[in-house]
């Protein structure tokens, strides 16, 4: 009997050829040309606690734009966002196959950051694929106050209540004629305004006080009722010189002194308010009060209405930058 069994022992052993290059190619295609799953809204917008809902990775912006990657997907995929992916997650959702492959996935943005996932690549014996594509940069508005210290009142005026406002005309922004890679999409990406060089652009000898009293939302011209003096950090982030504030109450005790503040930044997380109503307009208004001390000449101050949209030199519209992706499997 033993003599019968022993030869049968080795019959079951099977050799399997693994084409590492093919696995690397498959992974590169999944990452470069596919938006992943779920894709609308994309996996990158899931809460980190819902990580298990991701069925497949994919870095492309949409299925209509292969090889054009989403910045948010890239940072999320390489653990620079709110997710913490393990090697096992990358194997299950990007590499696939029954075998626990070792891998290294890296992506470099031209003149920008490099991202890595996986183990360091060995000297030889790995499957390899290199892909070229483009990454879409998220739009933002940057107001350099040096160019906007142009409003004036006459010499006898002692104070001015004014403001800086940003207008979202969703009908104009969400323009389906513009291809998705160049379109501003407030439904699914953050909108940021950075007001720079504020106090250094003022005639400081002339201005005795500048206070930002409050920030308010107006929809189609009327004030939106909200609890403005509460932190709502999943919808906006408002900071002056790096310190976070609420949008402010109506009390003067909450006023923010801007006399020595250079950077005012307002970041709205997607979806921005009312962006799902395509014909609505949202205005974000920062109320600012100036008091003047000098009385030798007319007073100038910073204020203005800024439109968040296409064709304004202070809006960095979505633009593309070349990237290179390398996948090594062994």
């Amino acid at each position, binding site marked *: 009997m033993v003599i019968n069994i022993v030869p049968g022992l080795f*019959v079951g052993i099977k050799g399997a050829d693994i084409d590492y290059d093919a696995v690397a190619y498959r992974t590169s295609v999944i990452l470069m040309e596919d938006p992943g799953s779920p894709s609308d809204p994309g996996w990158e917008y899931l809460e980190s606690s819902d990580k298990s809902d991701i069925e497949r990775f994919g870095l492309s912006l949409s299925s209509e734009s292969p090889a054009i990657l989403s910045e948010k997907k890239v940072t999320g995929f390489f653990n620079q966002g709110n997710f913490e992916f393990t090697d096992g997650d990358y194997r299950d959702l990007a590499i696939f196959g029954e*075998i626990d492959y070792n891998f290294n996935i890296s992506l*470099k943005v031209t003149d920008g950051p490099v991202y890595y996932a996986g183990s360091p690549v060995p000297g030889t014996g790995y499957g*390899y694929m*290199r892909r*070229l594509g*483009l990454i879409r940069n998220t739009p933002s508005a940057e107001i350099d106050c040096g160019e906007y210290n142009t409003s004036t009142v006459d010499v006898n005026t002692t104070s001015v209540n004014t403001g800086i406002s940003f207008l979202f005309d969703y009908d104009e922004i969400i323009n389906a004629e513009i291809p998705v890679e160049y379109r501003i999409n407030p439904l699914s990406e953050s909108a940021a305004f950075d007001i720079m060089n504020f106090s250094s652009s003022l005639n400081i000898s002339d201005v005795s006080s500048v206070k930002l009293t409050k920030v308010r939302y107006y929809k189609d011209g009327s004030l939106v009722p909200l609890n403005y003096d509460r932190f709502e950090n999943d919808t906006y982030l408002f900071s002056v010189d790096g310190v976070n504030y609420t949008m402010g109450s109506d009390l003067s005790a909450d006023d923010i002194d801007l006399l020595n503040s250079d950077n005012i930044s307002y970041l709205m997380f997607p979806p921005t308010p009312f962006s799902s109503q395509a014909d609505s307009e949202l205005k974000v208004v920062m109320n600012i009060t100036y008091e003047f001390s000098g009385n030798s000449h007319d007073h100038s101050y910073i204020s203005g209405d800024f439109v968040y949209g296409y064709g304004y030199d202070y809006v960095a*519209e979505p633009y593309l930058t070349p990237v*290179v992706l*390398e996948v090594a499997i062994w």
Partner: protein
Amino acid sequence: MVIPNDEAQLLTIEGLVAGLIMLTTAFFIVGTASVYTPADVHISDMQTEQLGFDALRVMSVPYSYGDESELEEIVSEIDLGGVNETTATLQFRESFSELISSGTGATTIVDSFNFSSSIYYVDSKEVLNKSLLYNAENYARRPSVSTGRYVLSEWDGSDSIVRFEVILWRE
């Protein structure tokens, strides 16, 4: 019938059964094993072709909305001839080489590619082609792959679709 002193017989049976169990275990363990070996690597041509295709795609997508893509601009400049053609050809060679030799730093890139390109266009129902200046010439002696892309650009004084082809090989 009673056999006296039969303990040895019991021990023998026990020993045989134990042996069988061990053999069966070994049979199942060894029998389900697979040995993985790397297969032949023969898709380097495909890698080169994909890289060339990717590079042409990157060059034919405008970086901002409403802009001309780099390849579109190069094609229309080549059509103008003279100094414009020389400058545009050199620009193409520089941009394309830079793209196909770029890496992330995770692996060592062997930058031994060379390439030769031409533009195919239709003139009076005839398909003609124009070789670019400064083309490397020895592709016939190397395994080479061809990749191409249609470009809508100014050609022969009107908006035309031309095919921009690149033959790529490793020196």
